[in-house]
């Protein structure tokens, strides 16, 4: 039931995060999710700035991971979220879950991402060739929570 929560500017290495997660010999499944800065359809994306609420972010992520550990039988859980300025194709977020059975791993990974998207205090601002824009919250992200309620 180990829990690793990191909020940081520097990049992270999926390879070493995965190696950490696979150490638990009782866990036959490791599910990972990585979110990347993606090209925009409308304009050229130059960079993205991630603002956060220091202190609350770590608490919110810990709460979400703990809720997942209470809901499913999990081994180690890792959540890493970057802040500051990121370039296209850089890594933003990593969620990794070790579990005995694959269904719990997939469900917990998606649950954590769905709650992170709606409850963790991060905000994205896109710097594009046509100006700077705060990213709007998506209705589809709110809808995603219904599945777990």
């Amino acid at each position, binding site marked *: 039931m180990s829990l690793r929560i990191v909020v940081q500017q520097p990049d992270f290495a999926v390879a070493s995060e995965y190696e950490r997660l696979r150490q638990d010999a009782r866990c036959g499944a490791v599910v990972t999710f990585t979110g990347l800065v993606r090209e925009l359809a409308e304009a050229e994306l130059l960079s993205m700035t991630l603002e956060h*609420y220091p202190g609350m972010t770590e608490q919110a992520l810990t709460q979400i991971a703990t809720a997942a550990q209470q809901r499913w039988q999990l081994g180690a859980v890792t959540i890493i979220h970057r802040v500051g300025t990121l370039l296209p194709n850089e890594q933003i977020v990593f969620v990794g879950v070790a579990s005995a059975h694959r269904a719990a791993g997939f469900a917990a990974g998606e649950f954590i991402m769905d709650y992170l998207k709606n409850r963790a*205090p991060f905000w994205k601002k896109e710097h594009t060739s046509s100006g700077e824009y705060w990213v709007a*919250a998506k209705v589809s992200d709110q809808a995603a929570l219904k599945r777990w309620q």
Partner: protein
Amino acid sequence: MLKILFFAALRERLGCASTNLDLQGQVLTARDVLNQLASQSTQWQPHLADTDLLCAVNQHLVPLSHPVTAGDELAFFPPVTGG
């Protein structure tokens, strides 16, 4: 004293990251605080009237009906967009 924080687009629109409010011993709701701040500035008023705003007391998301007292940390911010 109540510490009030603003984040992201709201912080930019207000031109302010944090302020303080002397509660003078009162227990108010987060919504009361929002109304009080709005009444103090016609510039702030439209931005604080945004019904999408979220609110955290002592770093936990709460509804606007949540009470705040001296020493609390209250934060207002737009819907989150991380991940």
